């Protein structure tokens, strides 16, 4: 019989709980504030953490997890050495390295060598800093950036040394605001290229070196770039001359499957170590970076969550405090209920439900604030935030358990009161 009426009993208790909360609206609200901010900060922290991790992971993910990146790094650490007038710095991945890789490494889907020059393009209105990227046609398969107009350059362009270029949409607009972009000419680094294609700019401006694409990019056939500009770069920087020879700046090696990535990376490492006397090539594996980033992010989230959890704890203690006060205040009511015939567990459940109603309404309001807060953070700071449904559910569960944990003691205390003494209480 009791089982059948249990839902209606609980409904009445919830109703009574809400009634009591309404009776002390101000007090309940202040008590709930603790929960509201606790829950909101949990959600906001998780949202910020999630947003940051998705930002970081997106950059790495752009490359794909089946890719190995070789990068030329300047290994000269000694500045005095660099200062020498005739010092000539030779480092990095060479064309020969790429050929060796082609010959020796199995399971390779494509190898994309990249040569980078930073140039300035002068238009009538302004001077635009651009990145000229010499590469092969495979690059476009690798990064998968959609074509807006025209075409990619082809292997025929490479073989025949056609001075053609594919530029980013944004650069196109900057260079030729009033003219047709396709078929126009762009002069960069002492060479003139005919624009044959326009690709979409990346949405997120990524500054990472491993990032394959930037916004002001001009993609040209590697063969043409090599022929025109050579491998030697002489630049004057704050009064000193830097001479360096770098054949290739980056090489992307896409494997046939994710599984072989790490073993191949070690193989490449050995190969490079054999032919390079200096440590001038860095091997980066986005897959590993991804994993590391995820791991870091996970720990970061735990710390953030723990900090937010403390505020929830404080909210819970506030609730317990107010419920203890409420038990004292309502001693006579408890006495009356007991005298009429309420059993101890019924008193416990009444107070417990009241606390849970309190904490869950706090949790619910906290969820609303928790949705607004990250949105505000994004608007103000520009950080990207992501509120997951999981964090909402988690917060509600936490507020439920806070209600139970912190409500239990006051409820049990209420039920332990001696009915007669409670009735006499004023």
């Amino acid at each position, binding site marked *: 019989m009791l089982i059948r009426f249990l839902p*209606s009993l609980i409904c009445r208790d919830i109703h009574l709980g809400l009634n009591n909360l309404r009776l002390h609206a101000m007090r309940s609200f202040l008590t709930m504030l603790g929960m509201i901010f606790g829950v909101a900060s949990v959600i906001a922290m998780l949202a910020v953490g999630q947003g940051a991790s998705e930002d970081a992971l997106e950059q790495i993910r752009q490359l794909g997890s089946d890719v190995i990146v070789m990068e030329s790094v300047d290994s000269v650490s000694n500045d005095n050495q660099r200062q020498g007038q005739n010092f000539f710095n030779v480092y990095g991945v060479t064309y020969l390295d790429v050929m060796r890789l082609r010959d020796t490494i199995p399971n390779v889907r494509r190898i994309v060598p990249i040569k980078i020059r930073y140039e300035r393009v002068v238009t009538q209105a302004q001077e635009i800093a651009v990145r000229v990227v010499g590469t092969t046609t495979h690059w476009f398969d690798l990064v998968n950036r959609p074509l807006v107009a025209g075409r990619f350059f082809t292997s025929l362009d490479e073989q025949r040394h056609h001075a053609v270029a594919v530029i980013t949409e944004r650069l196109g607009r900057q260079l030729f605001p009033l003219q047709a972009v396709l078929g126009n000419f762009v002069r960069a680094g002492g060479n003139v290229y005919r624009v044959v294609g326009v690709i979409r700019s990346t949405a997120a401006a990524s500054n990472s070196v491993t990032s394959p694409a930037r916004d002001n990019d001009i993609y040209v056939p590697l063969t043409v770039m090599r022929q025109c500009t050579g491998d030697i770069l002489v630049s004057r920087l704050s009064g000193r001359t830097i001479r360096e020879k770098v054949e290739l700046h980056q090489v992307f090696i896409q494997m046939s499957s994710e599984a072989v990535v790490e073993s191949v990376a070690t193989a490449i490492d050995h190969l490079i170590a054999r032919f390079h006397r200096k440590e001038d090539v860095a091997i980066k594996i986005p897959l590993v970076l991804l994993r590391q980033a995820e791991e870091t992010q996970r720990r970061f989230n735990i710390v953030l969550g723990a900090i937010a959890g403390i505020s929830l704890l404080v909210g819970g203690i506030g609730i317990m405090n107010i419920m203890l006060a409420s038990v004292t205040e309502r001693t006579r009511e408890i006495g009356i209920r007991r*005298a009429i015939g309420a059993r101890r567990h019924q008193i416990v459940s009444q107070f417990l439900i009241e606390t849970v109603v309190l904490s869950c309404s706090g949790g619910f309001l906290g969820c609303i604030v928790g949705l607004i807060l990250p949105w505000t953070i994004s608007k103000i700071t520009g950080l990207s935030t992501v509120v997951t449904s999981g964090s909402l559910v988690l917060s509600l569960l936490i507020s439920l358990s806070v209600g139970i944990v912190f409500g239990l003691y006051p409820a049990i205390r209420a039920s332990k009161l001696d009915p*007669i003494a409670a009735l006499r209480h004023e």
Partner: protein
Amino acid sequence: MAAKNDALIVLQQVSRCYGAGDSLISALNNVDLSIESGKTVAILGRSGSGKSTLLNVIGCLDPISAGTYQLNDQDVSKLDDDALSILRLESFGFIFQSFHLIPQLNVLENIELPLYYLGVEAKLARERAKSLAAIMSLDDRWLHRPAQLSGGQQQRVAIARALVNDPAILLADEPTGNLDAATGSQILSVLHRLADEGKTVVTVTHDQSVAYTMDRRLYMLDGRIVRTDESRNEARTSEINVGDFSC
């Protein structure tokens, strides 16, 4: 003393002491009492003589310090807290000296409180509460809080609540204390009707005329029952029994 097997309530050498050591007060002192089912009993005595305490002991609300209390041939002092609660819930109706209504609840909610703990369906409980409120002439005060009622109205709510679970034993602590003569006699006739239905009624009163409508009168002094009087004044009963209540 009546034979044990036909008595509903049997107290033997019951004492109830409050406090400890030097400040020990014995509110009940070696009380012997037996009440048969269906009887009406009035308890009289000076203030502080232990009337309310006796009523609380009978109602399983106050544990006894010494002696034995048998209710329906069952030793009450051996029951645990839950069993006592259920006993109070199912067998007793309490009308407290100071009403003891729950201030947060309105009239109907107060009246149906015992039904709530009995697990009666909300709709049925509401109907029963309404019919009792009607009997107590509280029809127009259903949704008022106790604080919005007069003393007499509060008392009538308390009486309705005591009757709502249809108890076998009604314990009333000065049920007519706050009522005018007419309303008081109406309440009294309700009590007598319940007695006619076979319910046991124990009431504390200072009013001799009320006491004389009962089957038995117990006079208390300093925690003892000093005199018992079983004669019933039929004339007074009929005189008072003019209430126009339909129960």
